């Protein structure tokens, strides 16, 4: 029996790609004959990480297909034609409304993703959802098959690599660094981060800067609008890094004093775990899967008022007891997502499927 993972695009360094690769490693450890097949393979991935779907060998009825679902693609429809038992690994689909007026391509991809999700209803025997939030999304979409929660597997060992020295040298000073990591996208609400930072810099601490780490590829219109907003607010020291290398991301985490997330739609939000790993205290807006990933740790807010967020940052930085309590809470929460724990969950779920 083979277990193959199929996805539309396997990208270098993104959560879904890393999760897929980690799952393959675990399947190999469990002794399964396994491969990853994708339509688009990022050339930066190690050779042999994934194969083109055109090279997928004939499957038999007992083989298992783990199909990663996160966007609109023709695979959402053609996947049902492959023989084998189908399990959907659901990473959520950003509501298409967020992209209206910014990117027709993203709008279409997410719109078609929802259509694909509806199409696959009743055609997969089981689902693995990254979070309870994603599980609820599937139930609301009408999925009645068994749905288990399998958190994203984060290879924390990678975070021990050396951070980029150039970035460290450039920003290592006594300034307060506020960080958000995630692609520049309307659902992530970078404008709310900028607004809160504008208040913080103007009325609380002028020696501060904001790092918005993430690619804006495909969402240039939104990126330009954010840049315009920075000019409208007259706020300086807002750094849009664009696409960054992994060691540069590590450097930004090392430099960060606070991780500020105002996102309104996340199926899991891996950067929250990354911030936890680097002991960066988090202030995050309670939306979508964010409160679940935080699991009661960090500071979850239901208010985006700039003065409130700015004062909260000030308090978090100046109140040592608060800062220590937040970081300690995050460290405890991070244990729930340790590689070993997620590995055990995965093993159990796969054993159930194989049985």
């Amino acid at each position, binding site marked *: 029996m083979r277990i193959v993972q199929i996805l539309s695009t396997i990208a270098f360094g993104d959560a879904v790609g890393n999760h897929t690769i980690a799952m393959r490693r675990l399947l190999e450890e469990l002794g399964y004959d396994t491969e990853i097949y994708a339509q688009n393979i990022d050339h930066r991935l190690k050779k042999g990480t994934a194969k083109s779907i055109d090279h997928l060998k004939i499957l038999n009825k007992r083989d298992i297909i783990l199909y990663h679902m996160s966007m609109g693609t023709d695979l959402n429809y053609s996947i049902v034609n492959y023989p084998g038992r189908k399990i959907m690994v659901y990473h959520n689909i950003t509501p298409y409304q967020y992209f209206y*007026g*910014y*990117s*027709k391509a993203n709008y279409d991809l997410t719109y078609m993703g929802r259509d694909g999700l509806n199409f696959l209803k009743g055609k997969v025997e089981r689902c693995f959802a990254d979070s309870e939030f994603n599980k609820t999304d599937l139930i609301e979409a009408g999925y009645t098959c068994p749905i288990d929660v399998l958190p994203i597997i984060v290879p924390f060992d990678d975070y021990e690599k050396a951070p980029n020295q150039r970035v460290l040298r450039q920003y290592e000073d006594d300034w307060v660094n506020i960080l958000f990591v995630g692609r520049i996208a309307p659902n992530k609400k970078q*404008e709310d981060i900028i*607004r809160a930072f*504008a*208040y913080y810099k*103007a*009325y609380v601490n002028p020696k501060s800067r904001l790092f918005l780490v993430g690619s804006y590829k495909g969402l*240039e*219109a939104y990126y*330009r*609008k954010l840049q*315009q*907003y920075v000019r*409208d*607010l007259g706020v300086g020291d807002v750094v849009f890094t664009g696409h960054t290398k992994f060691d540069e991301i590590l450097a930004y985490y090392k430099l960060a004093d606070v991780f500020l997330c105002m996102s309104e739609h996340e199926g899991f939000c891996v950067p929250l775990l990354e911030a936890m790993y680097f002991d960066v205290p988090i202030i995050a807006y309670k939306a979508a899967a964010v409160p679940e990933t935080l699991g009661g740790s960090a*500071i979850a*807010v239901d*208010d985006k*008022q*700039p*003065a*409130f967020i700015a*004062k*909260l940052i000030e*308090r978090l930085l100046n*109140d040592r*007891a*608060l800062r220590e*309590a*937040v970081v300690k809470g995050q460290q405890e929460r991070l244990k729930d997502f340790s590689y070993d724990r997620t590995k055990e969950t995965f093993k159990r779920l796969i054993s159930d499927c194989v049985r």
Partner: protein
Amino acid sequence: MVDIEKIMQEIREEIKEKGLDKELPAFESGAPIRCGAVYECFDEDYFYENVEQMNQTCLIQPDRPIAGNPIAVLIKKTIRKLTRFYIAPAFCDQSQFNVAAVKAMNSLRYYIDEDRKSKARIDELAKRVEELEKRLESRGRE
């Protein structure tokens, strides 16, 4: 034991008491955005800028100044000579296409200019008609 909820409440009260909340420009109120590669709106200035750039850069040349140490320059020049038979016609085709695209865009620019003139003339005539109607109306009353 740190009570985060209590701290947040204290901050809210402080903001209320001291009137710390400030009016900041809303995100939506930003000036019109230049759409770049993604076209979701018509930005006239941007259009004219792009057409101007197209006019200036439509003819492309395969030869670029070669820099580097003497050995690198020699190697690059050799490669350039060896690949010229393939590269030069491709550049020529691309230039022809660019010229056609620029001509089409210039026509569109002309059309927009003419359209603007026509609209101005229509507005002028509409005002004139309105004036004449008012005059007729007042004469009728007399």
